């Protein structure tokens, strides 16, 4: 029998909001799939487009960038920059033959632990449906 495909998802989470939301999800003992891996960044605007594409090239099945809602950035407008870059990232993914749906930018505030939990579940399902990334190593 074929082994079930478990996608590997890297989630870059802003220190001030989504990383705190993920902590809150833990404190509240919310449960979400184990395959979503969090890397804490200081701001969603800190994530270089090459970091996203490289993560895919190194085998990620999905990459998420999560930050504060527009207007609530700790650094004024880092998330606005992230939003602009997300469009560029989508085009780069087209060139690399990676489905756009494998990448998502999402705003999740520190108070939205339940949203993080749901988002982790939703993205896992979505990427499961897409199957392994063409660049997946194993």
């Amino acid at each position: 029998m074929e082994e079930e495909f478990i996608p590997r998802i890297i989630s870059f989470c802003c220190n001030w909001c989504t990383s705190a939301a993920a902590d809150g999800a833990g404190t509240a003992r919310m449960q979400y799939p184990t395959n979503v891996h969090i890397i804490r960044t200081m701001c969603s605007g800190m994530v270089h487009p090459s970091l996203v594409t490289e993560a895919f090239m190194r085998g990620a099945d999905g990459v998420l960038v999560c930050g504060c809602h527009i207007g609530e950035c700790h650094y004024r407008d880092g998330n606005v920059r992230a939003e602009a870059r997300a469009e560029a990232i989508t085009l780069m993914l087209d060139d690399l033959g990676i489905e756009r749906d494998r990448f998502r930018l999402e705003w999740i505030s520190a108070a939205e632990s339940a949203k993080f939990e749901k988002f982790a579940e939703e993205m896992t399902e979505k990427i499961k449906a897409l199957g392994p990334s063409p660049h997946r190593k194993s």
Partner: protein
Amino acid sequence: MKRIGVFVCHCGINIAGTVDVQRVVDALSSYPGVVHAQDYIFVCSEPGQALIRETIKSKQLDSVVVAACSASLHEGTFRGVAKDAGLNPYQCEMANIREQCSWVHQEEKGLATQKAVRIVRSIVEAVRLNKDLQPIRVPVTRRAVVIGGGIAGIQAALDIADAGHEVLLVEKNPSIGGRMIQLSETFPTLDCSQCILTPKMVAVSRHPKIKVLTYHEVVDMSGYVGNFKVKLLKKPRYVKEGTCNLCNKCLDVCPVVVPSEFDAGLAWRKAIYLPFPQAVPSVYTLDERVCLGLDPLRCGKCSEVCAPKAIDYNMREEVFEVEAGAVVVATGFDLYPMSKLGEYGGEKYEDVISGLEFERILSASGPTKGQVRRPSDGKEPKEVVFIQCAGSRDPENHKPYCSKICCMYTAKHAMLYKHRVHDGNAHVFYIDVRTPGKDFEEFYQRAVEEDRVNYVRGKVSKVFKQGDKIVVWGADTLSGKKVEVKADLVVLALPLVPAAGAEELFKKLRLSTNKHGFLQEAHPKLRPVEHPNSGFYLAGVAQGPKDIPEAVAQASGAASKVAALFSGVELLREPTIAEVVDELCDGCAFCVDPCPVQAITLVEYIRDGELKKTVKVNEALCMGCGVCMATCPKKGIAVRNFTTDRFLSMVDAMLTD
């Protein structure tokens, strides 16, 4: 290669109950660079800390990874331990295998253990690239800006000033006093609200360290903790403070009549007005929104009768900037609009009023001088219905949260009504009566037992007019019977919502809120008076519904935080800010514009006879957001210890089995 030590915490069963810590230790023991890996039941305990200190020395560790809880909790602890053992504190990182692993994967023990291994490996990769950093020292401007002149703002201002620091108390209205000055008596003691607040208002106005800036608004803010620049707008009052002698002659001649904000619209005021007799500052304000025209040819009556020549139609808005080290946000609340409570007759019937309107009716300084009269015909109401949770605890239609103060003020309203109208009946419709506070339950019992207030457990189903009565239908869920009251007056306990304009202000200050617009705390339990953004402190209902003593306590808490911040001449800032990689930066300047704080400038100099272009980072301004790093096409600028290469090493570790 760096010699790295890994310490895996059980946190009792919090981690070890889900994650097989022994397997994590085994997996890490053979990982490149890791020269020591071990588990311990509570790494944060003193013996746990001692274990790390001793191992750093005995194994000559260069870096340490503590796999335990969130860095937001114990990073300070373990960096301190590393420092005690002679390491640079930035050589210690935490791997979060509790909040972000064991607690969220309790049903997946095997997978959770695999994930914990990947998390710890990724942090080993991160710390491998960490550089020694020294905190940046910046000066502190020992001046606080307090936004909001209600009881919370007043208390915060007084406490900060009493600690010896300058305070600017900014209030958008013509007088300080906020909501509390509008209240009649306060629960559970029935102190007269004005009587206990006005001494504090006077104290603020007389305090040598406090400058009260009424009729001012914050329009913009930049900078960072210890070094904010606050842009303030002074709205024109058209009356000169200090010159106006309060002779009241202008009132007699002003032809414009508008509803009084202080009396919650139940009485009238002129276009030129003093909000209430004890206003601070004691000066008239000409409301330009309703004045017939500041052009003296059109009206000018007030100016004609003003003997001391205090009226100046040529006043204009002024914008100026002040420097401050800390900001206390105490912007208070409004009531949820009556118009949204159409089902209870809100704004449909004149005799359906808000709790705040009833406060004014009860108040000795109110439009009826404290005699209970209903708005429509001035008659004394004999049957009064109070509807609690009129919009609160109603997730389908209105606000899901409890507004916290309504149970108590409704008990107070009903009690005060009965004290004044002995032959009247007070009926309270409620879902639950919540009285968690000192002397609160006793107060409620007094309303029920001594003052014979009729409490009906159940929601109101219909409110409609019949003749000059307001008929209230409800169900008593305790007896199962239908209840009908032909009321003369209905009082709604509306939800508390953040003050009008707060949303816009919080956007300008970049302050995050919960989804109802109340300000976020740095930690809901352990840092309840601080915002996550350093240098911002919270007081009063701006952070969430609360009563007066809680608002005062929070304000004093916020003030003590400000005083602690101001206790040194310098402040230590995180050194994780942008740094130019000289050999890679070619001075393309792509990073200059996106920087949110204009910390980056382009510089040119001659090196080896050639023009070298590069950028320079202002260390005092840079906040370390990394927008420059993500903009640079050449890896020419990076945030210290948060470089893209470091993130990539972490990604690799997370993707490896």
